[in-house]
Every structure is written in structure tokens, then in C-alpha cells.
């Protein structure tokens, strides 16, 4: 049976009822990987199949012996390849970390291991999570399962494509400016960027530390809540991790949403938003009134300065975070450097790809003496205005709804020559990172056969009610856990 088509919750339920074993689930996704992975290219590292099956067998044995197991125990999944996994290559899709095997697991990896989920492999991304299409991967571009001539989005494009193609039940990604939500939108899956501080980044290879968050990519809302139940929570090893009581997110599913208020910021429906995408999103929004929700237009006037502010903040932080790659302690080292300084310079120039260099350069420039006040400081002030935009709206509304991406998935190669056009793919998603608020993308329909995502933003730490709302909306829209027919080259 094609178990891979189940959602993670359905698979977990079947495991608990002993209708299926973890080995059968794992064998099913491995078969699926065998059929479609050559076309999708979602993995950078696919673990040895026998070892993966052995992990599944361990869970099956524990279950058979009556051990009490977590709900997701035995469910196969993938991790974005910027999450450290002990002894397993963690490349960030960069040449500079080609064979790097971390000596420790990221916090979220520890959590998933404790839960007993089965790691299948590490997913492709744009190098160091910088990009919106996976085309900046030093290895290869992942293809969109809905149309393999198109990109899956990015930077967590591998994670999104693997979930959409049925190669894993869920995956983790990271989101600095939309890197979970935009690929989720383009691949027709659910993707959440949690509130800044909710999920520990210990072991997430840093890109822009004031913006980075780890989040799940899943087949539906219930799966997303289930994964958040595992990975959310305080961890002293990430000093930005907020100490607060742990919530049970699945408890929110099925609660009434009547009377909750939705804000529609007109600023997110203007600049560069494809008319068809807008139409599909608006149809979905109209259905919210059927749920007894109140919907009103609002204005968030500083939205248009979000992208420039983002590219200054993110690149400044990246230039600092990526200073550690110098060919000394780990990773790539250039050959034949005659002194330490030339070792640094050659290693970094040979090890980093063009987009990463561009961003390191822009960040270094905006932090350099003489430009700091003109650029970096201005961007931090603009960030305050963007946060205040959100605070004002959340005084009167529970949620903000926007499109996730201005367009459906674009063709591979379409935007690679023009960095600025590529940056504009993130226009709807970056504000959540700047403001630190939680935001989710859920599939809400199709344009020309390609999935469209709807974004819901909420108050800080209001993930529970975001799930409550999206769960109700998901059942109304009827587009949950839809898997595309991937064109299988060799006849399947």
C-alpha cells in the first residue's frame, strides 16, 4: 500500500493502532524516493537505506514490547541541511562545508530523536539559506514536484519538495525572511515560522541571528501542530530562547473561530502581486466570513520599507556570522596559501558561492565605517516602524492574512541573473521576521495547476490560535495533503 500518501498524523495513528509498522512506512517512503528522487533532487544526503530501516525496526520493537512511545515515533522525516546532525554531513549546500560532520546534534534534532522519528536524509537548500529557489545550492537545484521545470522556492526548497512529493511525512526548515513559508507556498504544503524565541536555534547554522527561526513543513495543519509540540520550548543553549510554559498545540484544533477578527492589509495586495494569485487568496479570505469571522481591511504603511531594511539587517548579520569560515577549524581549505591572511581570503573566495559573497559584501559594506549610520542604523529604525505597524493592527485584530508569495512557482533560471527580482519573491514574508511574529503558509488553491499559499500572521506566541484558525480554514478550503503526480521518468 502507498503509505507515503498519509499525513504524519494518519501514519502515527496507524502505527499506534498497529495497522502498520514503522518499517513498512519507511519502506514506503524509500520506494517513493526510488521512484521520484532522481527527478526531484530534494536530498543532499540520503542516509543508507538499511540503517534507516534499522532505526524503524528499533521503534517497532519498542512498540511491540509495550514501551510507551511519543505520537510521532516511527514516522520518517527529513532535515534541512543547515541543522547539525552528529556524524552526518551537514553542508549548508555550500562547498565550504562539503564534508563537514558536526560533533553534536541541534536542539531540534535531539528532540526529534527523543521522540523516535526516523531520519531519512538531509534536504537541499540555497547555500547558507540565502535564496528563494534552491538555485544557489552549490550542488544542484531541487525541482518542484508539481512541475519539474519550476523551482520549489527557497531556501528550504528541498524540505518543501520532499514533503510535497511524498518522500517524507514531514521536514524541518529554517526561515530568515520566508525560507519556510515561500517554498511551502510554492510546493502546496504547510510551513510555519514560529515566534522568534519559541524554538531553540542551538545547532542551526546561523545566517542572520536576529531573524532566524526553525519551523516545520508538513502535509496539513494537524501535522504542523504535532511537530511544534515536539520542537517548541525553552533551551538555555540558545540565549534568545524564551522561558515560558510549554503548550499543547494540537489542543487548539477544532475550536470554534467565531467572532475572531482578521485584518487584510491592503499594502500586501498591491506591489507586484500576481492578479490570479490575489484572486485565489481573496476567495479563500471570503470563506472566513462563513466561519463567523470578521474581516476588515487595514493599512500597514511601512510595509514598503521592509525589503530594503531586511536586506541590510540580514546581510549585516550574515557578514558577521559567516566570518567563522576561514579554513582553520573545519570545512574547506584552499591549497597553497603562503600565509594565514591569504589562507582566509582564498578559502573564502573559493568556498562560497556568488550569492553568499554578494551578501557578505553588502553586509560588510553597510557595517563599515562611514556607512553604518547611513545604512545599518537606518534599517534598524525602519524595523521599529514595521514592528509598530504590527502592534497597532494586533490591538484590534487576532490575525493578519496576506498572500505568501507574490507569484506561483517560477521557472528554473528565470530570476537567477537578477538578484533584486529574486529578493522580491520574499516581499510578503520578510515582515514577520523583522517583527518577530509567527506566520504560517497554508495551501489555498491553484493557479494554472500550481499551488497558491495563504499567509496567516498572529501575535507573538499565538501559534495555538493560528492553528485553530488555519485548521478551520483548511477543512473549508479542502486542499489539505494533496500530493502531485510527479512525472516518473522511467515508467514507475
Amino acid at each position, binding site marked *: 500500500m502507498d503509505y507515503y500518501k498519509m499525513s504524519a498524523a494518519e501514519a502515527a495513528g496507524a502505527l499506534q493502532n498497529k495497522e502498520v509498522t514503522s518499517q513498512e512506512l519507511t519502506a514506503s517512503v524509500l520506494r517513493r524516493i526510488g521512484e521520484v528522487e532522481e527527478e526531484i533532487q530534494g536530498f543532499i544526503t540520503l542516509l543508507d537505506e538499511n540503517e534507516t530501516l534499522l532505526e524503524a525496526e528499533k521503534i517497532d520493537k519498542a512498540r511491540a514490547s509495550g514501551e510507551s512511545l511519543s505520537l510521532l515515533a516511527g514516522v520518517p522525516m527529513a532535515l534541512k541541511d543547515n541543522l547539525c546532525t552528529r556524524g552526518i554531513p551537514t553542508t549548508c549546500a555550500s562547498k565550504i562545508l562539503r564534508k563537514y560532520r558536526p560533533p553534536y546534534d541541534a536542539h531540534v534534532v535531539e528532540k526529534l530523536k527523543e521522540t523516535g522519528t526516523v531520519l531519512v536524509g538531509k534536504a537541499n537548500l540555497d547555500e547558507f539559506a540565502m535564496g528563494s529557489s534552491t538555485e544557489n545550492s552549490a550542488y544542484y537545484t531541487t525541482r518542484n514536484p508539481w512541475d519539474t521545470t519550476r523551482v520549489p522556492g527557497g531556501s528550504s526548497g528541498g524540505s518543501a519538495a520532499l514533503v510535497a512529493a511524498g518522500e517524507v511525512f514531514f521536514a524541518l526548515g529554517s526561515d530568515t525572511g520566508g525560507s519556510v513559508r515561500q517554498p511551502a507556498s510554492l510546493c502546496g504544503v504547510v510551513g510555519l515560522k514560529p515566534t522568534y524565541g519559541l524554538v531553540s536555534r542551538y545547532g542551526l547554522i546561523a545566517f542572520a541571528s536576529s531573524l532566524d527561526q526553525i519551523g516545520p513543513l508538513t502535509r496539513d495543519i494537524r501535522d504542523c501542530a504535532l511537530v511544534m509540540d515536539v520542537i517548541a520550548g525553552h533551551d*538555555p543553549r540558545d540565549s534568545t530562547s524564551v522561558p515560558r510554559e510549554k503548550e499543547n498545540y494540537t489542543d487548539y484544533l477544532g475550536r470554534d473561530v467565531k467572532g475572531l477578527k482578521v485584518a487584510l492589509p491592503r499594502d500586501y495586495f498591491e506591489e507586484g502581486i500576481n492578479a490570479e494569485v490575489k484572486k485565489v487568496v481573496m476567495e479563500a479570505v471570503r470563506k472566513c466570513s462563513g466561519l463567523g469571522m470578521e474581516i476588515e481591511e487595514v493599512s500597514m504603511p511601512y510595509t514598503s520599507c521592509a525589503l530594503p531594511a531586511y536586506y541590510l539587517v540580514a546581510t549585516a548579520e550574515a557578514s558577521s556570522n559567516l566570518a567563522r569560515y576561514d579554513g582553520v577549524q573545519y570545512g574547506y581549505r584552499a591549497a597553497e596559501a603562503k600565509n594565514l591572511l591569504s589562507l582566509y581570503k582564498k578559502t573564502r573566495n573559493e568556498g562560497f558561492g556568488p550569492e553568499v559573497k554578494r551578501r557578505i559584501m553588502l553586509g560588510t559594506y553597510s557595517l563599515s565605517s562611514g556607512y553604518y549610520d547611513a545604512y545599518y542604523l*537606518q534599517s534598524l529604525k*525602519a524595523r521599529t516602524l514595521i514592528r509598530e505597524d504590527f502592534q497597532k493592527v494586533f490591538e484590534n485584530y487576532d490575525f493578519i492574512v496576506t498572500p505568501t508569495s507574490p507569484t506561483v512557482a517560477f521557472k528554473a533560471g528565470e530570476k537567477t541573473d537578477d538578484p533584486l527580482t529574486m529578493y522580491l519573491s520574499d516581499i510578503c514574508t520578510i515582515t514577520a521576521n523583522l517583527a518577530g511574529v509567527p506566520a504560517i503558509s497554508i495551501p489555498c488553491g491553484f493557479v494554472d495547476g500550481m499551488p497558491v499559499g495563504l499567509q496567516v500572521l498572529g501575535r507573538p506566541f499565538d501559534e495555538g490560535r493560528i492553528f485553530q484558525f488555519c485548521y478551520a480554514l483548511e477543512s473549508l478550503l479542502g486542499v489539505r495533503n494533496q500530493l502531485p503526480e510527479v512525472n516518473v521518468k522511467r515508467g514507475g
Partner: protein
Amino acid sequence: MSVSRKEVEYVASLARLDLLPEEKESITQQFNVILDYIQRLKELNLSGVEPTTHVQQLKNVFREDRSEEKGRELLPEVLEEAPDSARGLFKVPPVIEEES
């Protein structure tokens, strides 16, 4: 305002990047396009606005100032990942040498 190739070369040296001539060329061009877009920020009235460095208003998070012994056992694994090491240390080319 526009950025010259010379400035790009200076920034590259700060960033420890040994850019190739064609990279200097393309980065100079792209810099100007991106910086032109970023000029939008200049249109804002930002006087009196406090900068946001972090969205969580967490105070400094301290721990006891004591070295943590754990992790020492990982030293062999850590050094195995190093491009070059000797006697339990990272090995690098000469440090004290005049740059030509």
C-alpha cells in the same frame, strides 16, 4: 550614490574575500542596483525612532562564569574535521610574516 570598483575592492579586503576580477566587476554593478533600491529607506522620517536590534526584550542571559568540562571528549571528533591538525591543535600556515 554609486559605489566604485575601488570601494568594492576595499570591502572585499575587509570581508577577507580574494575576489576575481570578473567578480569585482559584477558585484560592483549589482551593488549599485541593490543600493539604489535600498535608498527607499532615506525617504522615511526616522528622527526620534529608536533602533530595534532584537524583537524579544530579553535581558542579558547569564550563566555562572565557570568553564564547562563537558565536551572535552569530543576533541578527537572536532580535530578530525579540521583541514590540518597536529598534536591536538589546529595547524595553519605562518602567521607572523609580512604580507606582500
